[in-house]
């Protein structure tokens, strides 16, 4: 007999060492998330994956699954909070979807659609953030960074290069590049590096691919992020 938890009344099996998020994804249950990527160690920073576990809120990407946990996930209350979090992400950076080349392939945009976010609600901060286009094959547009640290983790853990890091706190948080000049062009980052593939937004991207996929053939044009991330949307 395998061990189980319940998520919104559904019985979900898990193996020892799995988090609630791991168990949910393995069973095709979608819990909204942005800083989590199953290939990397959980980070627990965006809080979008917050669920209610036995009456208390917890980040499902870091919370280990244990026998019999009662998890609430897809509730109006939790989704309201998630929507507010996403709205804050939108006003904290400069996310101009209409002209962004990541539009249609962006997880931030897709999760906003999933959570039925109709407007940013809060006042925009319009922060001044730097664009680093010094690398011939890669663009870093900090305007779109949500500080999920996926690139930091991927560069360190998968590429063994440690190109990225975060400094500062709150509104002063910045994604920094580890080179003497602080510019991407002076690092060993390669276009094929894992770090360049993992960004959930349009902050870190390969150059030369902008808008080459026509509208109608982008990842989220016909599938919700729920379908894509639980494998349900693929024909």
């Amino acid at each position: 007999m395998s061990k189980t938890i319940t998520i919104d009344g559904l019985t979900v099996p898990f193996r020892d060492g799995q988090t609630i998020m791991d168990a949910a994804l393995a069973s095709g249950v979608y819990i909204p998330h942005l800083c989590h990527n199953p290939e990397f160690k959980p980070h627990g920073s965006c809080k979008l994956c917050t669920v209610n576990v036995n009456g208390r809120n917890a980040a499902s990407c870091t919370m280990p699954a244990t026998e019999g946990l009662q998890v609430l996930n897809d509730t109006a209350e939790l989704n309201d909070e998630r929507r507010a979090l996403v709205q804050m992400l939108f006003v904290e950076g400069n996310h101009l979807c209409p002209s962004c080349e990541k539009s249609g392939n962006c997880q931030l945009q897709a999760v906003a659609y999933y959570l039925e976010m109709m407007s940013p609600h809060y006042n925009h901060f319009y922060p001044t953030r730097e664009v680093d286009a010094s690398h011939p094959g890669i663009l870093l547009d900090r305007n779109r960074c949500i500080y999920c640290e996926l690139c930091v983790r991927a560069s360190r853990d998968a590429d063994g290069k440690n190109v990225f890091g975060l400094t500062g706190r709150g509104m002063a948080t910045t994604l920094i590049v580890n080179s003497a000049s602080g510019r991407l062009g002076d690092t060993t980052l390669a276009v094929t590096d894992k770090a360049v593939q993992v960004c959930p937004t349009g902050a870190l991207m390969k150059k030369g691919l902008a808008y080459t996929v026509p509208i109608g053939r982008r990842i989220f044009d016909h599938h919700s992020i729920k379908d894509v991330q639980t494998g349900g949307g693929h024909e």
Partner: protein
Amino acid sequence: MTFELETAANPQGLKRVVIEPVSRVEGHGKVTLLLDDDNRVHQARFHIVEFRGFEKFIQGRPFWEVPVIVQRLCGICPVSHNLAASKAMDMIVGAQLTPTAEKLRRLMHLGQVLQSHALHFYYLASPDLLFGFDSEAAKRNIVGVAAAYPDIARQGVALRKYGQEIIRLTSGKRVHGTGAVPGGVNKSLSLEERDYLLKDVEQMIAWSREAVELIKKVYGDRPDFHNGFGYFRSCFMSLVREDGALDLYHGGLRARDEHGQSIFDHVDYRQYWDYIHEEVRSWSYMKFPFIRSRGREEGWYRVGPLARVNNCDFIPTPLAEAERKIFKAFGGGGATQATLAYHWARMIEMLHCAEGIQELLHDDDLLGSELVSQGERSLRGVGVLEAPRGTLIHHYRIDEDELIVRANLIVSTTHNNQAMNEAVRQVALQYLDGQQLTEGLLNHIEVAIRAFDPCLSCATHAVGKMPLEVELVDAGGNVIDRLAKNSDGQCGA
């Protein structure tokens, strides 16, 4: 070609009349008149605030984003900006467009011009033309046209929709798609999409012919009135193909003076600044371009349908070419100068678009798979095309990191700035001078502006609506009279 009435000799003691249509995104336009106690016009100016800050906004952005960002300049002709910027970026990436890419872009552009011209003629201009400039204001709108001439209104809607379908299938969306990319396009047409468009194209040609007949009839019924309304002479500028043909997508710059004599011809637009200067005047946010060799007083010009049909040696599609000849003969063989002839020229162009679309749809290159090309990079890109309203210039510089450092745009409406002011002055003199102002008389001024189809006309004349306020202000700045027209076209104090 003088600046009479631009600035009153003694503005003190004159009444100020402001016509200020409230607009949405395309900019904010207003007309101010200075009148004396006998309502004689001493000064007339047309100002627009538009595109401010845009050139700044894209500084520091990667160049490849620009064709998509610039579409936001305008909700009516986004494709023109998308294509002009893409042409500039072609230069930056050193592309020689593949036949598939060039033809798809041309198709997209013809669809755009078709839908824009249809929108302007049926929705914005036809109420004035069919009912009269001072006809009952409440009916002088597309709703009124639909009631009195249901067939005409229906054709207008269908033509517009057809153009939008072309845009959707070539760019992914009806508005603000992503079809053109630096060096080419991101999709070609499928066989089904091509056949879907082919199915209705004959009908579009037939209706465009009817539209030309309609404007010819309206114009011909009162030729002297239509010729004389807001009449003035000016230079004209447009792109023409190498062989002198009308070409909306690409060509060299041709300018002719008010007598039809060549000023320059087949100029490489990548050097446009050697030929055109932009003057700033304190009272308007919009610049005043002029042809350098002629100077500011003699060098201002008109662009758009009238300029193009006047300037080209021929139109490369047969039905439109036959109409061009009639148009030309009507104007006595030289350039037609009449302000209202813009409407006529516009419909000849719409017919050309419909014919051109049909021709392209029979070309299998549209189904091709070679979409983009690249070559030697450049730090500068200039893209010019003929947008629905006239010559559109996009000019960018990038740095070594491929980020935009400088941008300069000269949009169609800006080229026409001086000419629109001139039309306003002529109409003010012809119709308003010494008269008690009424809504109908003020509409005459708007009719003159609207003939140019400036970008703001859509915003001020949307379906049945033209929020408009006119204030009479005395020299001390006190409002002495106010005439407001609300969104249902009713006038009230």
